[in-house]
């Protein structure tokens, strides 16, 4: 009995990852290819971000990937003066929620954009963002 290697690609996600395995691990490959992606149910057409492996509406697990493209509107944001363990080196940083219409995306504002540059309703795009040590996340940029 050979040991099957565990697929722990998700360990690379973010500054600190809290889980390694998910059935949407391809999300990490897409990020590494420069794309932020969600899933769409092949059966009923529901779109999901963050990507899901299973559709709650029709219980299908047949999903296709789509690219998060264009810009969404900034719903709300906060700049942290304190971070959890492992995030001290990132401070200060801003987390945000952006509404793309059919779905919303939770993430970080790109480094270099300060709070005074931000206002609710402004257009932002999500972009893959390589981090140190082979890690990766995505961040929001002004167009």
């Amino acid at each position, binding site marked *: 009995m050979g040991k099957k290697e565990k697929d722990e690609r998700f360990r690379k996600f*973010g*500054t600190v990852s809290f889980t390694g395995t998910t059935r949407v691990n391809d999300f990490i490959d897409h990020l590494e290819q420069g794309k932020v992606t969600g899933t769409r149910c092949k059966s009923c057409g529901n779109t999901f971000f963050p990507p899901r492996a299973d559709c709650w509406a029709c219980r299908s697990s047949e999903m296709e990937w789509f690219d998060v493209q264009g810009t969404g509107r900034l719903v709300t944001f*906060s700049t942290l*003066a*304190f971070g*959890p363990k*492992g995030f001290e080196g990132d401070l200060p940083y801003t*987390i945000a929620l952006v509404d793309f219409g059919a779905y919303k*995306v939770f993430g970080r504002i790109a480094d270099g954009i300060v*709070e005074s540059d931000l206002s609710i309703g402004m257009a932002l795009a999500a972009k893959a963002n390589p981090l140190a040590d082979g890690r990766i996340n995505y961040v929001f940029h002004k167009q």
Partner: protein
Amino acid sequence: MNDVAIIGAGQSTFVRYYPGSVRELAFEGFSDALGHAGIAAADIDASVVCSAPEYDLQRSPAGVFAEYLGLNPGPTFYVETLCSSGSTGLKLAYSLIKSGLHDVVAVVGFQKMSEISSAETQERMGRGADIQWESPFGTMMPAYYAMYARAHMNAYGTAPEDLAAIRVKASTYGQLNDRAVYRKAVTADMFTDPDNMMSGSVASPLRVGDCCANADGSSCIIVASAERAKSLCDKPVWIRGIGSSSAPVNLAGRDLFTGLAVAREAAGQAYKMAGIGPKDVDVAEVHDCFTIAEMMAYEDLGFAGPGEGRDLINGKETYLNGSIPVNVDGGLLSKGHPIGATGGSQIRTIVLQLRGEAGEIQVPDASVGLVHNIGGVGLYGNVTILGR
């Protein structure tokens, strides 16, 4: 309907560091409640233990407590909905009694936040959110509530001063509460003085003064069937309405950012079950883990219209002498927030109010009280209506 009653309520003093074990901490709230009810452990036939397990070193605390509290061989159940575990425990006790399975149930809530370091606490709190898709960005509870605060400010013109006014109210009553962890005065000036700790940013737009403190503590509510309540208790407090709800954990799955959908849903259920509306409530305890949480609670519970919460606090309507006194025990902001004990402490305050035992903070002739207890950032919502 008088089906299920609360016949006793207790809590430990909430402290930064409890110099004992969790079973000893649980004993303090439990013993206080038994004394209040005037009953013995032998009168209790089942228990429900409430905590957020990520802060506990002890696995499966319910079994450990059942022995320590003298509740063997009665069954014990463990429940968890983060910061609203206590209210969820009350709902389970209500169900156990209403079903006829049990007659007298103790709901014991506890948390010893000091068992782990402050940084670990923050990290574990963050893990009460979506660990797969949100936590890797470095989220924390204050930052999530800050995002609601930002949205509320943008939509309604709510100002940081309006939020500070909620903390000032909390401290007004926290100074009177000898079970509270924070008993010093807080003034609005502190929020604008850059040299004052209260003005320091935590997660914009929330400042230190907008946030409650961690604490160690325990609470206990004794719940009984109508028959047992009448034989054991002169002043039963009846559970009239009990609502609870859930929402998507990831903010990306939500549509409302100026209030908590779980609170609105739970409140609707509880009001309907009790056959009353917000205007009928004489005194309320709301989940003010952050000042913005109390502001949204005013609106989610219907004490104020959308965006009108600031008028309620600035008009001092939620003070003891106002039209709807809220958190006149100091709230989480003053008492501290030992996660699993918090809901029981809120319920206790309302029980004391409805029995006319609230002392300096007594709302005259209070007959209907409400408890709003939220788990996570609006992940779980519980609203309970109690009446004499």
